[in-house]
């Protein structure tokens, strides 16, 4: 079976260092795939290259076509979306405007209002605050807005960079519940996380990235019981 999205031997040079070396991974349709690993392993660099913000060597194939040399905007038009670690919201624009801009790349504007209603159903807090400037939201709300804004583009592949970073445990649980629920929309997800336990509990398949290389991979339910990973990333119990 051919994958929806695959990286083959991708190398990314960042600050004159190969931050990511010969990484190969694949995401099947409707699957949640996670890349876990310590801080500085190259996880964010990998996603930045996958969306086109950093240039890379190797092959990147999305739905049968090579997107490796395409611009960020061309990838977004093919419905490959990234929610970056820094969220990159439009802080002095309203929540509603941020969401509307999420749909910018859609040529067919007829379904935008329905998608907006769906996002508000999923995140009622955003609906309450739709007129508020994005910069005034709390950390959890900002993450919800970043996720909601990405969903406005009706993504086929959604890449999430550390969605739980800096959030309170209760909010983290809510965010992961939301990510798991995106399965029913048929969205494929590539999830990069330091919170390895939560990521593996949500994902179907996992890769372990250390110092820029994939050192281990397998079904998430196997990785979560792997003794080495338990000691290194899952809190040792």
């Amino acid at each position, binding site marked *: 079976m051919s994958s929806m999205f695959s990286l083959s031997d991708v190398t990314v040079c960042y600050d004159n260092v190969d931050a990511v070396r010969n990484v190969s991974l694949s995401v099947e349709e409707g699957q949640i795939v996670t890349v876990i690993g310590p801080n500085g392993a190259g996880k964010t660099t990998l996603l930045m290259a996958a*969306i086109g*913000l950093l240039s890379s060597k190797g092959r990147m194939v999305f739905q049968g076509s090579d997107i490796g*040399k395409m*611009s*960020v*905007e061309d990838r*977004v*038009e093919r419905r490959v*979306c*990234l929610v*970056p670690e820094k969220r*990159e*919201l*439009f*802080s*002095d*624009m309203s929540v509603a*405007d941020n969401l*509307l*801009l*999420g749909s*910018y*790349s859609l040529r067919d504007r007829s379904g935008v209002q329905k998608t907006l209603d769906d996002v508000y159903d999923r995140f009622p807090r955003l609906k309450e605050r739709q007129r508020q400037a994005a910069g005034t939201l709390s950390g959890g709300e900002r993450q919800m807005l970043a996720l909601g*804004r990405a969903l406005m*583009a009706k993504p086929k592949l959604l890449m999430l960079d550390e969605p739980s970073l800096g959030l309170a445990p209760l909010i983290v649980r809510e965010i992961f519940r939301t990510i798991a629920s995106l399965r029913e929309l048929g969205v494929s997800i590539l999830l990069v996380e330091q919170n390895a336990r939560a990521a593996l509990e949500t994902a179907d398949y996992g890769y372990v990235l250390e110092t820029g290389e994939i050192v281990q991979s397998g079904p998430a339910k196997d990785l979560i019981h792997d003794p080495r990973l338990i000691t290194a990333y899952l809190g040792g119990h």
Partner: protein
Amino acid sequence: MTSDIAAILAIDGIATGAVYALVAIGTVLIFTVTRVIFIPFGDIAAFTALTLAALDAKRFPGTGALVVILACLATLIEITSLARSGELRLLPRALSFYLLLPLAVVGAAWLVMRMDPPLAVRLVLALMLTMPISPLLDRIVFRPIADGTVLLLLTVSVALHFALVGLGLLFFGPEGVRTEPLTSFSTVFAGVLISGQTLLIVIAALVFSGLLFLFFDFTLVGKSLRATAVNRTGSRLMGIRPERAGTIAYLLGSLMAGVSGILIAPVNTVFYDSGFLIGLKAFVGAIVGGMTSYPGAAIGAVGVGILESFASFESSALKDVIVFSLLIPILIWRSLASLHSEEEIEE
């Protein structure tokens, strides 16, 4: 100075300031979207006035040839960069946007001009002919260095202004022009005579800044421009192309500058190099507003206009000296104020 004279000077200052405000708003628009401080905006205003004067005199303006040459250059550069990145499939789009569209505008203007059109049509023609200049200059000059520092972009922008002044002399000649007034209406308000032209300037400034406000708040394209200004990476992740946002910003900015040129031409004699002072004063107004705020830029520009009006009453030879000297303390105050806020952020 009597109160009557003060009132006349104030009204005169507001009208001049309104012209600067249009250019200042355009300057802020371009700066926030592309990080370029576009000094040649004043030249665009002057070129529009010169274009209108040529059309009034039933001559085809030099702007036509200028646009054709810039369009050819821009197309050549675009084709080269497409060939280099192996994206020649985008060639038809590049040709239609950088070559056919500007040529069509010039061609249409040439045809319409032969039919001896009324003033309203000539105004539209003058605006249409000057609007492609800035986006084409953007493609030729700024796009290749888009990732440079603000200082590099500013230096190139100043150089570009001098190049444009030279081109202005070449295409328009050394004669100054003053176009016919757009209206002969005048009214007396609180004992002061206000000319229709003054009213028109203020109304046009209000209408065009109002339209810009509506465009930013109520259209997706307008919002995409604001998004690019607020967060470039974030907007790219939404599929908003910074180059396209830049082109739209240049087109809109040119429209504002062009309108200000048309408004000022019946009041002041405009030469090929008159744009510099208009651009510089608008730039100062924009700086008073912090380079990022539209109302701030407009208020700053009107302030510059009023100051200039009173200064020219005291000493017409020294008016520019007075205007720019008084701005030094304002700039020092602004830089101290912004330093202070950065410290607060760090805390």
